[in-house]
């Protein structure tokens, strides 16, 4: 698993990347009450705001971690936003995307580096 400074995790599945937010981010956000997902098939550029997350405390966005195309979104989260708190790094993935350049993942933090990053 790879991590971004914006508290997203990325997991490679075949030629796709699955994206979610870290347990640390979910804990900081508190109970998630609303999620808006991108469209399947949407082409995105790195740092586009493509997911809206609202918790009892705050509104936040998930940025596209890399250039690519959204291939699948986790519709279950729209009905049950609380899943993000229950299983942020498992069932509560947000979207899958195809990326042009898999090697871009190499520059991202691994788990040890991310743990260090959040202190």
């Amino acid at each position, binding site marked *: 698993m790879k991590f971004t400074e914006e508290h997203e995790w990325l997991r490679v599945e075949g030629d796709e990347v699955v994206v979610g937010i870290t347990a640390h981010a979910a804990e900081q956000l*508190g109970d998630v*009450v609303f999620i808006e997902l991108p469209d399947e098939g949407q082409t995105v550029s790195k740092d586009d705001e493509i997911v809206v997350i609202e918790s009892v405390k705050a*509104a936040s966005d998930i940025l596209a971690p890399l250039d690519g195309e959204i291939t699948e979104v986790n519709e279950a989260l729209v009905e049950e936003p609380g899943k993000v708190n229950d299983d942020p790094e498992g069932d509560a993935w947000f979207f899958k995307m195809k990326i042009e350049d898999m090697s871009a993942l190499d520059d991202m933090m691994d788990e040890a580096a991310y743990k260090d990053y959040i202190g």
Partner: protein
Amino acid sequence: MLWRGLEYAGCRLPRTRSQTKGCRVSDLKRTPLYDLHVSLGAKMVPFAGYEMPVQYGLGVMKEHLHCRAAAGLFDVSHMGQVILRSEDPEVAKAALETLIPQDVLGLAENRQRYGFFTNDAGGIEDDLMFANRGDHLFFVVNAACKDADVARMRAALEPDVTVKLLENRALLALQGPKAEAVLAEHHPMVAEMRFMDVATVPIAGAECWVSRSGYTGEDGYEISVPVASATDLAKALLAHEDVEAIGLGARDSLRLEAGLCLYGHDIDATTSPVEGGLTWGMQKVRRAGGDRAGGFPGADRIMRELTEGVSRKRVGLSPEGRAPMREGTPLFASADGDTQIGTVTSGGFGPTVGAPVAMGYVDAAHAENGTALFGEVRGKRLPVSVAKLPFVAAGFKR
């Protein structure tokens, strides 16, 4: 993830632990229960100049639901506790009527009332609770306003009346349907109190000033306790299986569902009590035709608005979808019209309602319950309707 702003009631939560270190925490005051909060695992945030618990281990949602189902303990020691005294208590009461549009002289001993300081322009400088405790008046005012409130009262009322901000007492709130049973285990007298009664009650060896009130829409008590006994009392109450510690996050969603205003957001120095829908808190004797009508700051505007009406009103708002409409969300009468007709002043998710809830100000023409409006969230116009307040019926013991 872009943290667009972890806002709670005007305060920003730390983004990461390393950023917390950068905050000027040293400027913040602590309540007598600070160490207890930390030992309970609270997340502490700056609020009104204090380091306060925004949530504990349960999290905002579960804390909110627990308070509605059983009982929640809140530290509200940041709020100002003020005593007004005069040789003849009637002097202080009459003097206070020059600062607030409430009936103070007619308030019976051991009873409490909601009130607000008004300014010359008819706006609200702070909202408060005041109690007739026999030989003195006892106030609870908002933390962010307490110094200004004391200065205002001193300027207007001294030397006939003395104004004292108490630094030696903490304030706890025990709220929820189990609050009576829990507190009655410490002293049976509290069960005899009705909503807005006040009494001096010895609890856990300390002289407590108890009122049957609160700000969650639930039955419950606010307990003023000497600082030296505050932590012991809090621990004794938390030891009961029905009681959980509740942070400011849930306090905000509880009061919002109860339709109660947060000063500085839903009411402020520019909003009048009539616009704010607080005329229930102005007794007949202070209104036109009453024996002591007017005579408070801004009476011209407020009395005029009482007869002629207002151009904007505070209303409840129910967003149709799941997206919360936060403070500052602009409101429109149609999906494409250019003219903004209102603004959300408090908004979020209501855990008991199970949906987003909000309140705000709208032009009077759009203020009727059921009026269909649109709130603009992230550039999209989403449907929202004007809703009756409160969202959750009050559980007061009248």
